[in-house]
């Protein structure tokens, strides 16, 4: 309760600040954008901010708006169309919560992580203790299962904006589990957050003992509150709901717990369940992408992102003729396991209508499928209503019209 009250006060304060800005904005000198924060120079020396000419922002998913009637935050999309490289700035990283959440205001001195259940030595750690332990820094994406819930959206922010990538620093979970001493017969863990709803998920013990990390820092600074401050679980390659924010507890257990957050993953067909919790190889062209406008024929550098929940990206191919011919794109960033990988492709547009597509291959040799290939696998008709079961990692076509406007090829 206290956490939320503080949060609401904070909200009122920022609301007042915005109102002040709007009032002050009209008095600004000619040539300045209205609403430019009039911060003092010593404030900006202490904590920098982006140029007022850079205006890229996140937007809430339209189907369930944030904040909703109760003030809860649900799903907020990152502006992939404006992204460069592979790191998403923390302030633009997508956010999502299953039931909706008030971002908690947690005092890190009070926060604890408990590891218990089927272990020889149940343990409680303070944040200071966790920071004394050996740590790793790794670059990984997080993607929500709900990314691309509807394939017909207009922009790449709307179609693919529930994925982001950051550098995460923390203690390897295998180290912590070894300290606690996992008992034989254990097969899952339940990881749980400290926010009001205490969101929790069942995670295979094999994954927990492989590459999961108890994270306290993101992009070189403590986690942001929207990303789980002061502690979150990183489960590389698994969909977003497993990346438990505000992590307070890990219980080692011998079965799937079917928590509230788990039951969204169940499906009568175990094959669909298998395609649900791990992100398949996926790529998308971020420029040019839906809603953008080419100024005319000539040279353009096509740019995009590829990632896979099963490892590193090995190859990205590009088609400028709707999938008839494919050529290798260049990887423009390190290709790290379970991380966004930037690709580029030199392209001379002749001014004629065409369809751009990308497809990637991951280190297991799995190739990103087209919607047609997925429909064929499930023996279903390929029409606008066809929905890719599980996490939709199918190829995204962008149509360039002869006047240079870019449209979703599936809309």
């Amino acid at each position, binding site marked *: 309760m206290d956490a939320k009250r503080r949060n609401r006060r904070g909200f009122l304060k920022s609301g007042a600040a915005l109102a002040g800005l709007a009032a002050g904005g009209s008095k600004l000198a000619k040539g300045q954008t209205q609403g430019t924060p009039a911060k003092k120079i010593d404030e900006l020396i202490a904590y920098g901010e982006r140029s007022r000419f850079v205006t890229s922002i996140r937007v809430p998913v339209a189907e369930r708006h944030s904040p909703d009637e109760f003030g809860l935050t649900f799903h907020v999309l990152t502006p992939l169309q404006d992204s460069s490289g592979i790191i998403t700035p923390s302030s633009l990283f997508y956010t999502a919560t299953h039931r909706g959440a008030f971002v908690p205001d947690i005092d890190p001195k009070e926060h604890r992580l408990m590891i218990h259940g089927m272990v020889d030595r149940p*343990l*409680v750690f303070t944040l200071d203790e966790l920071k004394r332990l050996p740590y790793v820094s790794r670059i990984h994406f997080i993607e929500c299962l709900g990314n691309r819930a509807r394939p017909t959206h207009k922009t790449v922010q709307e179609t693919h904006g529930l994925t982001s990538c950051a550098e995460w620093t923390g203690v390897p979970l295998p180290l912590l589990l070894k300290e606690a*001493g996992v008992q034989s017969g254990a097969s899952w863990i339940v990881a749980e957050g400290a926010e009001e709803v205490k969101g929790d998920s069942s995670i295979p013990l094999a994954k927990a003992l492989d590459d999961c990390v108890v994270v306290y820092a993101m992009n070189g600074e403590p986690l942001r509150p929207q990303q789980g401050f002061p502690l979150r679980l990183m489960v590389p390659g698994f969909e977003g709901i497993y990346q438990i924010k505000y992590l307070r507890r890990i219980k080692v257990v011998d079965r799937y717990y079917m928590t509230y957050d788990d039951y969204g993953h169940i499906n*009568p067909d175990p094959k669909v369940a298998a395609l649900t919790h791990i992100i398949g190889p996926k790529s998308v062209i971020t420029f040019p992408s839906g809603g953008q406008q080419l100024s005319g024929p000539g040279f353009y550098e096509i740019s995009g992102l590829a990632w896979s929940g*099963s490892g590193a990206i090995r190859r990205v191919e590009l088609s400028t003729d709707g999938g008839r011919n494919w050529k290798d794109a260049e990887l423009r960033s390190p290709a790290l396991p379970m991380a966004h990988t930037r690709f580029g492709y030199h392209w001379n547009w002749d001014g004629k209508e065409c369809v751009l597509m990308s497809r990637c291959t991951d280190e297991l040799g799995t190739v990103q499928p087209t919607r047609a*290939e997925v429909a064929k696998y499930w023996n279903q008709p390929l029409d606008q209503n066809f929905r890719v079961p599980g996490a939709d990692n199918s190829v995204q076509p962008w149509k360039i019209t002869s006047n240079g406007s870019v449209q979703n090829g599936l809309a």
Partner: protein
Amino acid sequence: MALPRLSLSAAVLVMCQTAWTQSPTYGLGRSPSSEEIRKWDIAISPTGKELPEGQGTAKEGELLYRSKGCAGCHGATGSGMHAPTLISRKDVKPNPAAFCLAPCVNDANSMSLHSPFATTLWDYINRGMPLGKEGSLTPNEVYALTAFLLYKNDVIKEDEVMDKQSLPKVKMPNRDGFGLPPAWKHGEPRLQGYP
């Protein structure tokens, strides 16, 4: 005199042992007390082994549904308001979407019925409700509200008492209608043979 002194020193020994237990390699962390574990151990297994003592019925739950403010967000009939549907509407068709970004609001998909185990319902009401007063319900109140929703969705009879024995045995409509995520192995594809 000798005997109590012995057991006292034994008790002191045990306490020291507890306080000393830290992670063996790095000597960090401490052992939680059994009371600390009990307070946080709120994820309820389908076997119900973490369920506390207590009991409740649908009739008690119906009163609580109004007095605890459930109806204010979920609607007097369990649907029709801003919060997710708790009692299936029979006058509308279920949403055909494979899943919802957020739990379905105001339709035939009842959040109470989706899980194959009634323990999920108890767990979620206990940890996550009512909005803004999470964790304030007593075990009896959670049993009663769970019983009320199960009764209104035609899963149990009105006079069935829900407690730690009976709740895990409730046969949910979706009990056999699910597949679990497969056992995960490093380096294996999501699904063999999938494009």
